[in-house]
């Protein structure tokens, strides 16, 4: 292993771990102001929106790939399926799509 790469990996590990860990230690057992609590409770759904879009459109060069994958996932999820079924269902739909392409 190259020494430079190992130093880089350790540096990356440290700067990745600190933001993950700090809130769990800093805010443990602390009551934050109600407005801030409300914002933090909104974060998961806002994050999901930002994580899905627009990135899902660009998973392959063919933009239809992302559109069909997203549509399949939305429909299967809307019908009330479990997350794993949504994942496997979208993979299956896209496999069929790329097979006929």
């Amino acid at each position, binding site marked *: 292993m190259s020494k430079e790469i190992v130093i*880089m990996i350790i540096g*990356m590990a440290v*700067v990745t771990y600190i*933001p993950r860990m700090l809130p769990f230690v800093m805010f443990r057992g602390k009551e934050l102001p109600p407005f801030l609590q409300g914002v933090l409770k909104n974060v998961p759904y806002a994050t999901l*929106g*930002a994580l899905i879009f627009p990135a899902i459109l660009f998973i392959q060069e063919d933009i239809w*790939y992302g559109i069909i994958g*997203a549509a*399949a996932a939305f429909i299967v999820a809307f019908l009330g399926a479990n997350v794993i079924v949504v994942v496997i269902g979208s993979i299956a739909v*896209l496999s069929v799509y790329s097979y006929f392409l």
Partner: protein
Amino acid sequence: MESTLAVKQATDFKKGVQSGISIAIGYMPIALTFGLIAKTTGLALGETVMMSMLVFAGAAQYISLSLLAQGIGIFEIILTTFIVNIRHFLMSASLNEKAEEDSIGARMGYSFGITDETFSVAATREGTVNAGYMFGLNLTAYSSWVFFSGLGFLIGAGLPQTLQESMSVALYAMFVGLLVPSMKSNVKVVYLAALAAAFNSIFTMGELMSTGWSIVLATLLSAILVETVETFKTGRRTEADE
């Protein structure tokens, strides 16, 4: 008393493992590809696995490879990693709101495994989360990430191309699967997700900032805007009631 606590932690751990399975499936193609690209970038097997074990952050790891390939220095790579991963601060702060008061040591342990995916699964779960659940969830995701990074390095392009391509949707499908049930029961979730998606599209497609900052800013703006509107509305309602 002690043994019932141990039993509860064990059951929660199992529940965490079960919730982690969709992440483990989703990580498979990404980790395999990471291993393959790491090899073509010139990393050794040990370095590849070590990065997945210690950093455990997909996007940052991919970016580091492309920066290495361009001959960028390690200080810039570490700085970029920090910027790309700063969003985890927001996620941990949010998840902390529904985390039970486990010991500092336990919290420092499981916080290592906070990723976009483990956070999304834990944060959309009903009720609270505790150390048992978080360790089960994160370990499942982590094992898949590390194992398939190494395997990707070794077997690389062994998987059929069409399967690799269709599996690239897996994590996004999981995000959709986590989001939609909450959207159906709460219209506020629709606004939150749609606003953040719109902001993120403007920021990234308008090339106003890097993806790392864009996700943080889009999330914060959406969460604050929706909360402000809600506070304002409920405030007015209370006044009207008086």
